[in-house]
């Protein structure tokens, strides 16, 4: 069986990989591209540990077939910082102790980024519903939700300062 050649952009760089038609994008990212940030918690779309952005949309990469990535632009947790500067979400997760074991963290960061990209000033309830596709068994979500709200505030403030 010949393998499919896929070209896309990953975290801002041109990328290409080979895959089989039935491969999950999650496996291609991890095994072909060596991007181990996205995790497999279930493989069935129920835990969100494998969350990525594909053309700006939040996806469970375990449910996306790898060939579907052709021509798309993908962001993984490895791509959300700006070089050495952490994304405010990453900074707030650290300061707010939003992670314990940390295995859910990549998925939460990506899902939270998707939320803040479209709704920069969410309420607690909006945060809770936007993150309802991501499972965390360690934290009870309290510190995650607070950290996302804190990051939203930091980003709002940054924008206001930039506008001034």
């Amino acid at each position, binding site marked *: 069986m010949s393998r499919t050649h896929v070209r896309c952009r990953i975290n801002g760089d041109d990328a290409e990989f080979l895959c089989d038609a039935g491969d999950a994008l999650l496996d291609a990212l991890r095994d072909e591209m060596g991007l181990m940030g996205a995790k497999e918690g279930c493989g069935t779309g129920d835990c969100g540990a494998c969350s990525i952005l594909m053309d700006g949309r939040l996806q469970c990469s375990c449910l996306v077939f790898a060939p579907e990535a052709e021509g798309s632009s993908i962001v993984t947790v490895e791509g959300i910082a700006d070089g050495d500067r952490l994304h405010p979400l990453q900074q707030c997760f650290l300061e707010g102790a939003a992670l314990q074991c940390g295995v859910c963290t990549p998925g939460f*960061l990506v899902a939270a980024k998707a939320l803040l990209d479209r709704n920069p000033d969410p309420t607690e309830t909006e945060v809770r519903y936007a993150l309802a596709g991501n499972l965390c068994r360690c934290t009870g979500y309290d510190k995650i939700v607070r950290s996302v709200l804190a990051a939203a505030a930091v980003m709002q403030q940054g924008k206001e300062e930039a506008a001034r």
Partner: protein
Amino acid sequence: MTITDQRPGYRYVGTRPVRHDGLDKVVGKARYAADLVLPGMLYGHILRSPHAHARIVAIDTAAAEAMPGVRAVITGADFPELPADDPERNTTRNLMARDKVLYEGHAIAAVAATSQRAAKAAAKAIAVTYEVLPHTLDIREAMAPGAPLLHDDVFTTGLDSEPSEPSNVANRTCYERGDIEQGFADAAVVVEGEFVTKAVHQGYIEPHACVADTGQDGKTVIWCSSQGHFRVRSQTAAMLGWDTARIKVIPAEIGGGFGGKTTIYLEPLAVALSARAGRPVKLVMSREEVFRATGPTPGSVIRLKLGAADDGKITAAKAWMAYESGAFPGPWAMLGCMCVISPYNVENFLIEGYEVVVNKPVNVAYRAPSAPMAAFAADTLVDEIARRLDMDPIELRLLNCPSAGDQAPYGPKWPRIGLRECLEAVRDSDHYRSEPAPGHGRGVASGFWFNIGEASSATVNLNENGTATVVTGSPDIGGSRASMALMAAEELGIDVYDIQPVVGDTEVVGFTDVTEGSRATFATGMAVVEACRDLKRQLCGRAAVMWDCDSDEVAWSDGQATHRAGEHEPLALAAITAEAGRTGGPLGATASLNARGAGPAFSVQVTDVSVDEETGRVTVERYTTAQDAGTAIHPDYVEGQMQGGVAQGIGWALNEEYIHDADGVMENPGFLDYRIPVASDLPMIETIIVEVPNPNHPYGVRGVGEVGIVPPIPALANAVYDATGARIRELPLSPPRVLAAITARNGDGG
């Protein structure tokens, strides 16, 4: 909010620095076991039993071995049988079935191949002939005469006479004190009930994973996700019949455990496959395998009767407690007996426990194992007593609250404990002092857990530039690296970021027991403190060399050596380490200990819920938890443990359960149907850290990891009663069950 019993002025202990390993975890760099890739690595796959109970008649691996890409196939026959009295015998029989499979998902064979797909296909090609046997999944059924027998060598221990027939009941435990007849005679109120809970899973988000690389020298290196890599080493050695010296275990980052990663499932299989193939082998479970073959924590049937005098004093307790243990016996019923009435002083009691094997995966600890089910029974009935006597439920608990010197139901006298302080903290909280919103119900409950000490080792090395490396053998599940660094910083008087906390593999640090029983910060922290104190003595000695004085003349304070008589300017730690090469060589210290005196843990919680009377859905509207942490080293992670335990308890109470079909096959082995709480299911979880220092720890630490999961079930059940008037004694409190209870209540003339 923190309530402290006068804490000395610490500089680092009690602060909230960003954890040292945090950065790697937010940028996706942290390496968990499944992230490891080695050159030439093969992929393994495990063939598992489709039957709940069957005799293995024959296994034919020939077809699988001949398939393309297949490099090794193993079965139970590749592992030595351990003698009946070997403590790991059941572990090895759980890892690979021998003559019988005992639950659906029991491993029978494993394959290593050049790709995951090839390994899977080959596992499918293994032909197993089974003779299917009748199975038993229900405790009461398994205890009944004539039930299908799992083992013909299990005879009930602890009975009055030696049994002549094997049984699914592995043991009977009994705790008794006083005169229960008299106790009940003295009671003005007697309440009783039967409480039923289902098996639930720890539900860590990272499935079990490991990589093993066995070299031609017969030695192997294992990378794995485990709560204790030294136990992985000893269990793997036992299963393979190897000397432990042949095995090195490197702990990867661990994606949650909660007790579920205190035993092994994959490692000896990966080692055996790797030894046969001569290449590294990776084994990663799917989520489905995690549900079918690991965990869960026991289902239970508990009958409890309590009596209380009209002033609220509990006069008698009688308990009958049966815990299922899965395919092999465990300590679960015994633990349940020891916990059930521990938050109460009761003079007259009789507590009986039965450990029952059933055709389910072998049960494993889940945060304060056996205590939540016991608390469900006890704290529901205590709530009933409070209502019958028209007393405040916290006042009733205060009235019956044990304190230092009282005798615990399981025997010993209580040391200094913080239950009273937790009860008072909740009583005085904003939450408790405000009325529940209209239509909401409120529930209160308390919980107890022992906490344990055990063996820990730590090595602290000082670097030339005055920084320190702290190496311990405790895997960091929830921020323990930061706690170790804080304690070392406090001791040495240097900045917490000048300390690099490291989790060492089995060859770089001394033996350390599993991170379980809430022991890492307590026991391993003690070893860190001891090593640092040794270092301070050495530092004083080096300062004495530099000053050319007697070391008695030097004292250590605030991160520097000071001359007692003030004849020299103090020397900072970095000034001493810079000269270490010339004053006697590098500075380092190791401490290994068997920690004693892990102070018992208590938590008291209050919750408000609303119940949709149309659908039976319970919504948690508000939640507050108070817990005695002794001393919170890093309060963020103490709160995190408290909140995580509560969230798990809420899931257990409201949603989670193992569901099996008539053939004993699990019907909900995925997160879609085994639904754990998500962010939109929960409110903020308010925390009150109570600090009643543990006198046996240099900083007063008590374990905080476990007790938080104990009160949520009864707290929620009591709140549901308060909201609806329906008492529910069976879990989970899922919409259909709550709805049925509401309907029954209406039928009762409500």
